[in-house]
C-alpha cells in the first residue's frame, strides 16, 4: 500500500511532491544503510579458547549466556580427556591397557562408543586407521620431548601387538579387553572428534543456532553464520605456517578435520619423521600425501577418516571416501597438487596465497 502511494507521488504528483518524495526516500535509504551496516557487527559473538586435550579448544558462539555454554563444553571436553587419555595417569583407557591380555575391564558408555567406532573405521579402512598402534607411538615418542627412531627389530616386534581385531567389546556387560599383554590403545586419532560431537550436542541442548568449535583444528560448524551464510573454513597449507591455507570450504553443520605430516614431526640425520604411523609398516606413513581433510556430518568420522586416508594414499583414500555417503575430502600430495572429491567441486574455493600448489580439478 505504502509502496503504491510512493509510486503514485513519483509518477503523477506535482513537481514539489515528487521532489519531496525523492528526498524522503533517499533519507530512508541512507538511514537504512547506516542501520544495516552498524547492526551487522559481531557484538553478540562470544569467543573463547582453552588449553585442553593437549591442544587449543576454540569456541565461537552466537547466543545469550554463551559464556556458560562454553564453560559446560570445556568441562565436558576435560571429562572426555581424563577418561580417554594415555598421557596422564588415571582414566579408563589406561585401565584397559593395563589389563591387556589379563581381564575385561568395566568401561563407561563414552569409551565403549569410541572404541566401537574406532573398530568400525579400522575395518572399513582395512587397518589403515588402527587405535592399537599405541606400542609404536610410544616407541617413537613423537609426542614426547625426546622422539627417536626405533630399530627395525624393535618395530617388527611391536607390530605384532598392533591389531584392532584384538579389541574385544562386551556391550552386554559394558566391558572390554585387549587380547594380548603389552597391547596399547591410543585414542589420539579419534577422541577429539568425539569431543567435538559432544560439544555440538551441548550447543543444541541450549538451543544455540550458530556456533563453531575447533579442537586443535578439528572443526565443527553448527549451522551457518548468524546471517545464514556458510562458515568459511580454511584448509591448512601443509607447508605454511599456522593459519595459512590453500583453499576454503564453505560449510554448514559439518565437521572439517585435517591430518598431515606437519602437525608433529622431528628430524633425525636429515630425515623428517612425522607422527602418523602406518599400522602395516610401523613407520610414518609414506604414501605421497602431506595433508588430508575430511568433511562429514560427524566429527568422530572425520577425525578417524582423515588419518585413515592419509595412510591409504590418494588412490585408495579417494576410493574409500567416494564409497561413503555424505563424506568429502581434500587431498594434498607431496608434489603440491590438490585433489577434491566430486561432492566438493562446487563448494571448494582454491585460494593459495603461497602460489606453490596446483588445483587438479579433473583426475
Amino acid at each position, binding site marked *: 500500500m505504502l509502496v503504491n502511494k510512493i509510486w503514485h507521488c513519483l509518477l503523477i504528483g506535482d513537481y514539489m511532491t515528487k521532489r519531496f518524495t*525523492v528526498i524522503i526516500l*533517499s533519507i530512508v535509504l541512507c538511514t537504512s544503510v547506516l542501520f544495516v*551496516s552498524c547492526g551487522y557487527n559481531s557484538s553478540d559473538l562470544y569467543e573463547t579458547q582453552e588449553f585442553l586435550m593437549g591442544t587449543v579448544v576454540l569456541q565461537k558462539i552466537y547466543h545469550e549466556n554463551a559464556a556458560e555454554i562454553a564453560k559446560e563444553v570445556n568441562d565436558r571436553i576435560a571429562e572426555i580427556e581424563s577418561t580417554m587419555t594415555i598421557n596422564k595417569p588415571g582414566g579408563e583407557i589406561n585401565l584397559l591397557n593395563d589389563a591387556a591380555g589379563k581381564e575385561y575391564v568395566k568401561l563407561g558408555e563414552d569409551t565403549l562408543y569410541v572404541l566401537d567406532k574406532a573398530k568400525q573405521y579400522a575395518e572399513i579402512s582395512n587397518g589403515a586407521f588402527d587405535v592399537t598402534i599405541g606400542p609404536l607411538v610410544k616407541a617413537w615418542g613423537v609426542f614426547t620431548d625426546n622422539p627417536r627412531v626405533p630399530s627395525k627389530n624393535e618395530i617388527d616386534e611391536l607390530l605384532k601387538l598392533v591389531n584392532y581385531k584384538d579389541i574385544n567389546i562386551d556391550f552386554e556387560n559394558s566391558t572390554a579387553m585387549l587380547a594380548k599383554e603389552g597391547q596399547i590403545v591410543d585414542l589420539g586419532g579419534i577422541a577429539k572428534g568425539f569431543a567435538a560431537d559432544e560439544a555440538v550436542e551441548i550447543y543444541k541442548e541450549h538451543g544455540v543456532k550458530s556456533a563453531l568449535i575447533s579442537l586443535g*583444528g578439528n572443526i565443527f560448524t553448527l549451522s551457518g553464520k548468524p546471517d545464514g551464510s556458510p562458515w568459511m*573454513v580454511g584448509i591448512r597449507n601443509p607447508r605454511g605456517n599456522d*593459519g595459512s591455507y590453500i583453499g576454503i570450504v564453505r560449510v554448514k553443520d559439518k565437521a572439517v578435520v585435517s591430518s598431515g605430516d606437519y602437525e608433529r614431526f622431528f628430524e633425525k640425520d636429515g630425515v623428517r619423521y612425522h607422527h602418523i604411523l602406518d599400522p602395516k609398516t610401523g613407520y610414518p606413513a609414506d604414501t605421497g600425501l602431506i595433508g588430508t581433510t575430511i568433511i562429514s556430518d560427524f566429527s568422530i568420522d572425520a577425525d578417524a577418516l582423515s588419518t585413515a586416508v592419509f595412510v591409504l594414499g590418494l588412490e585408495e583414500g579417494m576410493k574409500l571416501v567416494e564409497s561413503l555417503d555424505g563424506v568429502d575430502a581434500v587431498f594434498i600430495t607431496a608434489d603440491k597438487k590438490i585433489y577434491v572429491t566430486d561432492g566438493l567441486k562446487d563448494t571448494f574455493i582454491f585460494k593459495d596465497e603461497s602460489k606453490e600448489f596446483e588445483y587438479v580439478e579433473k583426475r
Partner: protein
Amino acid sequence: MLKKGDFFILGFVLILIIVSFTGVYLYKNSGSNAHKIAVIIKDNEEIKRIDIDNVNEPLEISVSGEYNNIILVEKGRIRFKEADCPDRVCVNTGWLTGKGDTAVCLPNKTMIKIEGQSSDVDIVTY
C-alpha cells in the same frame, strides 16, 4: 524531461548516499575499531592486552612457565621471538599482523592473538 531542479535533487541524493557510505566506512575503521589489540594468554588466563598500533619502540615480553617464551611487539605486529620448548612451532609461526591471527606455544600453554575476525576465513584447520 529532467528539469533543472531534478538535477539538484539527483545531486543531493548522490551526496547523501556518498556521505552515508563514507560515514559507515569511517566509523568502522575509526577509534577502537581500527586499532589492533593483541592479547597474550597463559594457562587460559589473559595476562596482557596491548594496542599494538600504539607501540612505537619494540617491546619484549617474557612469559615463563614449564618453558620460556619471549614475545616481541613492534608497531602493528607481534610474534614469538624465542622459545625453549622442543618444537618451536610458535616461533616458526612468525609475525602476526592481521585481525584474527594467532600463534600458540602448546608446550608452555601460551597463546598470542590479534583480536577480531579475519575477513576471508572464519577458521583454519590444522
